[in-house]
């Protein structure tokens, strides 16, 4: 335990050191340019101090990002348009809805693929093809088309999340539902079990380890989808909107704090699934 903690802290420390080093290197030029224009000379320690506190640095230093996150979470009301929690909440809602729809679609597709050879041959190639299309190109079209038929707000963004998240679930669950070996399937046959009985009593329980692994990937994909979905909506709200607004106005600190928030959000969501996975598999006797 102690050993693990030391290893983790060492890695975190190394990342922070590299980050500070990179911030100094990338922001140095601006400081030197400013000094040259003003006709003054600056010492190295002055340059270093300045690179750590610029308003629009090329790469903000870690403490700048942390201060920004603190200011926009703890010190802002949740209802405020400048609160990161407010924006993260918007992203979380479309992520969750998209994740739910994507998982259900993925599981449904997997069940039909496992039970029908025609589905296996006809649908599987399309599922794979769907993921080769760059989502950045499709996202605005989905938003525009759905808007034209009167659907706007949460659903179009969730659709993009669904588009990205159904794939890992479908592929993982096809494998999971096929996990029972011939002997177990033969046994069900000797009982004259129907396809539904085999599905619910054997295939679905056997697929649980595969399901949770797929859900973790799907969750991360959903979050990416939600952020991409927020870009073409005119940058109104959500972490994606914060990213876009930040890049319009050169607010690198804002961009980085939105990025870090998205990463933390993803980590928490994936961890939640991990906890659920441990509890479920332990109760099912599949972790021993």
């Amino acid at each position, binding site marked *: 335990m102690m050993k693990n903690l030391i290893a983790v802290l060492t890695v975190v420390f190394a990342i922070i050191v590299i980050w500070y080093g990179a911030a100094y290197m990338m922001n140095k030029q601006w400081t030197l340019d400013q000094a040259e224009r003003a006709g003054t000379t600056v010492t190295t320690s002055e340059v270093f101090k300045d690179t750590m506190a610029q308003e629009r640095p090329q790469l903000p230093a870690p403490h700048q990002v942390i201060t920004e996150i603190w200011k926009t979470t703890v010190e802002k009301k949740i209802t405020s348009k400048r609160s990161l929690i407010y924006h993260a909440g918007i992203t979380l809602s479309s992520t969750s809805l998209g994740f739910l729809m994507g998982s259900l679609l993925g599981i449904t597709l997997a069940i039909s693929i496992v039970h029908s050879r025609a589905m296996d041959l006809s649908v599987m190639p399309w599922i794979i093809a769907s993921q080769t299309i760059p989502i950045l190109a499709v996202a605005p079209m989905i938003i525009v088309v759905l808007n034209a038929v009167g659907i706007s707000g949460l659903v179009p963004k969730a659709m993009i999340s669904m588009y990205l998240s159904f794939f890992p679930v479908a592929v993982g669950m096809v494998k999971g539902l096929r996990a029972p070996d011939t002997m177990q399937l033969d046994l069900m046959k000797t009982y*004259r079990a129907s396809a539904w009985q085999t599905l619910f009593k054997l295939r679905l329980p056997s697929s649980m380890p595969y399901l949770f692994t797929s859900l973790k990937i799907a969750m991360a994909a959903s979050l990416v989808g939600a952020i991409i979905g927020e870009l073409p909506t005119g940058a109104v709200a959500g972490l994606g909107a914060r990213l876009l607004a930040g890049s319009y106005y050169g607010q690198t600190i804002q961009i980085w704090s939105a990025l870090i928030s998205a990463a933390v959000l993803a980590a928490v969501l994936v961890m939640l699934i991990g906890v659920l996975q441990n509890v479920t598999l332990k109760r099912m*006797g599949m972790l021993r």
Partner: protein
Amino acid sequence: MSDNSVIHAEKLNLVFQTNDGSVHALKDIDLTINKGDFVSFIGPSGCGKTTFLRVIADLEQPTGGTISVNGMTPQQAREARAYGYVFQASGLYPWRTIAGNIKLPLEIMGYSMEEQNKRVEQVLELVELSGFGKKYPWQLSGGMQQRASIARALSFDADILLMDEPFGALDEIVRDHLNEQLLALWARTEKTIGFVTHSIPEAVYLSTKIVVMSPRPGRIADVIESPLPKERPLEIRDSKEFLEVAARVRDGLRAGHLDD
């Protein structure tokens, strides 16, 4: 074909088509199994003993000849749930308790909750696992797991019990004990049992009829009606009759191999 025949095969053939050409798994099998028989199928791997059991169970389709189970085709018999099948591995679901595993076929066949519980108690007692219903499979030894899987096959009270090397993965001592228990169970339930094994002592100790098979093509080399009494303590394995039957089985197996 007498009135009390349960399984009857005539000129049964099965040819598998594989990438390396065709494999003659069963060739001209003629065999009658009577009600209450304990029939062992013994032979080296590839002799078709498991395949024949699977044909009876409608898990493989013969390519020639006829076979009837309880006077029906194997498919009809399977759909009438005429047999319980025990595989080499217990195949218990880790997410179900022992009782839950035994209930699996009962749930599928639509027994009432009350009936399910009653039958679970009955078959647990039959395999001497009373009181283990609430345990999970991983809490039981290999031998106990296999007994639980026999209980599962007995739970819906089919007349025929088909067993495919059920004790093959267990050690000798556990195996002896389970053989004794199986004989007692057979005496109590009067089921017809088809039993695949590659152990000569096991086949001779258990069976009323021993079918010796040989490979390439899979066929019957010898059928031995056992002269041993129905009551069989473990010591019977040192008796003269036992050793004579064992010698005849060994001769049958050797004759099959000489053809290679």
